């Protein structure tokens, strides 16, 4: 009967209850939608960045992270690579040589970042492959063919088939140079990439830098699920130690991106907290009003022998009902909207005239939300938990009502 009493009590003032549950529903919808959208952007950003760079987990020479230099390379990674690729959750591994150099064409000279890649692996992994605007991407048999960024191509007047000379220092510090030919030009929309990056087959750069066969500055591990990162690091750590390699999560390899996401998440959290506060204020107001209006009724209930715990149970149930209906509405609308955004995405091209980049990484103009059960669970949990906590004050008021004075 307490359940019936609580349920009917919340509908005494139908309009107020509807406004309250709508507020909760709307607030939760906004929270779910914006968190899912932000999570979607982060996931997309991380996914693109780790696939273009050195994976979710990166193995390097132990001193490379502090002072990246071309002579701090991994000598032979073939056996280790085979071992890692057998692990659960590992999609594939990729080898990279990251170096600096000077690109010289007939019209000028530009300092560049040079990235040696395995073209067949990159083709399956890196989003850069899809950003070729002229010519084609690299192939394993390409020899000294390279792909360059569009802005770099403009500065050096490069086109498909044009030649350039790449000058750098090899592992012994000696000056070395090679003639390359442009196979294709890519455009990501990020100045740092389009203006300075050259990609070449890793075999070509091994020759240029004087690396042994199988050598690379980084061994990247691309995971099937980013959430498996910790586990995989734990598995890799002992075998990497045997080879005297260091293992890093992508957050250490791309700290600017990690910091950006952390900062953005923090500011989003503040917005969500404000939203939550507004929702909770509405709930508190409703429960308080509803209790104040029923002072006499609570006095009667006490007079006829209702114990405090029965009254508490009734008020808790009223809060639970209001919270549950609001959460159901929020989950339904917010969940469906986010799910639609997750499946179909939202094209923001019309909102921005330029390409969008974050921390030197391009953001796809098609935003996909990322809905997760744990996020929904936590949001509903917070709203419900806070609702119950907020009902404690009016509950105290109701159970402490002075019977004689109220009924007089």
């Amino acid at each position, binding site marked *: 009967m307490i359940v019936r009493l609580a349920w009917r009590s919340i509908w005494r003032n139908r309009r107020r209850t509807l406004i309250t549950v709508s507020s909760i529903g709307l607030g939760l919808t906004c929270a779910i939608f914006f968190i899912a959208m932000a999570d979607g952007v982060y996931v997309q950003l991380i996914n693109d960045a780790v696939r273009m760079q050195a994976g979710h987990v990166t193995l390097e020479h132990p001193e490379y992270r502090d002072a990246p230099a071309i002579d701090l390379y991994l000598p032979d990674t073939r056996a280790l690579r085979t071992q890692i690729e057998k692990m659960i959750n590992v999609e594939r591994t990729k080898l990279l040589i990251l170096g600096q150099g000077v690109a010289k064409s007939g019209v000028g000279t530009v300092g560049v970042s040079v990235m040696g890649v395995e073209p067949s692996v990159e083709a399956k992994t890196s989003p850069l492959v899809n950003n070729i605007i002229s010519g084609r991407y690299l192939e394993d048999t390409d020899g000294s063919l390279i792909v360059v960024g569009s802005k770099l191509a403009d500065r050096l007047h490069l086109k498909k088939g044009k030649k350039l000379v790449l000058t750098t220092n090899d592992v012994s510090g000696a000056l070395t140079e090679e003639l390359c030919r442009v196979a294709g030009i890519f455009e990501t929309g990020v100045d740092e990439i389009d203006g300075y990056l050259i990609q070449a087959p890793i075999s070509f750069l091994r020759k240029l830098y004087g690396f042994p066969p199988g050598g690379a500055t980084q061994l990247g591990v691309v995971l099937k699920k980013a959430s498996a990162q910790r586990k995989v690091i734990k598995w890799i750590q002992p075998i990497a130690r045997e080879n005297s390699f260091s293992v890093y999560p992508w957050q250490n390899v791309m700290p600017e991106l990690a910091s950006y996401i952390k900062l953005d998440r923090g500011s989003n959290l503040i917005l969500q907290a404000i939203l939550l506060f507004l929702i909770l204020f509405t709930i508190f107001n409703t429960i308080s009003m509803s209790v104040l209006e029923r002072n006499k009724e609570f006095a009667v209930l006490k007079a006829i*022998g209702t*114990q405090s715990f029965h009254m508490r149970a009734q008020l808790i149930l009223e809060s639970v009902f209001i919270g549950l209906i609001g959460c159901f509405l929020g989950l339904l609308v917010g969940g469906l909207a986010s799910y639609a955004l997750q499946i179909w995405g939202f094209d923001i091209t019309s909102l921005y005239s330029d390409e969008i980049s974050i921390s030197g990484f391009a953001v796809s103009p098609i935003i996909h939300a990322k809905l997760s059960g744990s996020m929904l669970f936590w949001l509903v949990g917070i709203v419900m938990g806070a609702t119950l906590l907020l009902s404690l004050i009016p509950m105290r008021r109701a159970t402490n009502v002075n019977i004689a004075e109220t009924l007089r």
Partner: protein
Amino acid sequence: MQSIVRLKGVTKDYGQGEVVVHALRGVDLSIQTGDFAAMAGPSGSGKSTLLNIIGGLDGPSSGEVEVEGRSIINLSGTKLSRLRRDRIGFIFQSYNLIPVLTAMENAEYVLMLQGVPTARRREKVMALLKEVGLEGLENRFPRELSGGQQQRVAIARAIASEPALVLADEPTANVDSKTAAGLMDLMAQLNEEKGGTFLFSTHDQAVMKRAKSLLLLKDGRIVYNGAPVENLDEAE
């Protein structure tokens, strides 16, 4: 006969300092088990205060209050609550039914508090509602009932748990004289048949005449305690 209620030197003061109101000034009283007692007196004479103190809804400023031979002065809130639930029934002037519960649910509420199984309490309350003349109206909400019908539900609620004592604060004040007579018939019948003790406050001479005994209060003191009288002035 045994006393169900015994008061000794009970006083009740409201307010502080110079604005103290002495609602009760040393009341000594004994109500016998099975009595059907009326309590009369002008407004402000202390009738409601006395009922509240006997029912454990309010505490006296001084004096001793016993219900069924047990002092209730120092009982904790929980114990007082249990006493009211199990041994005392209340009937209020303005019915005070729970508006979102039906007549049957209102009447069975105290039984629910006592933990009586649903089927048993339903059966009991259905019989009780029939007894108070509300057969067929069990599923109506208070707003769908007349004042007299609501007070019958309140009576059913008060006696459903078969309390030893029923306290009624002007139970007929909000109904017409015909309905009032009907309610008094009902309470008198319940007093006869079930043997419960009834103590009710009233301004109505016709109601007073129905009582087995009469208490007359004036300025917080009992000025008459005896058989009902034709004229209150005689009693004073």
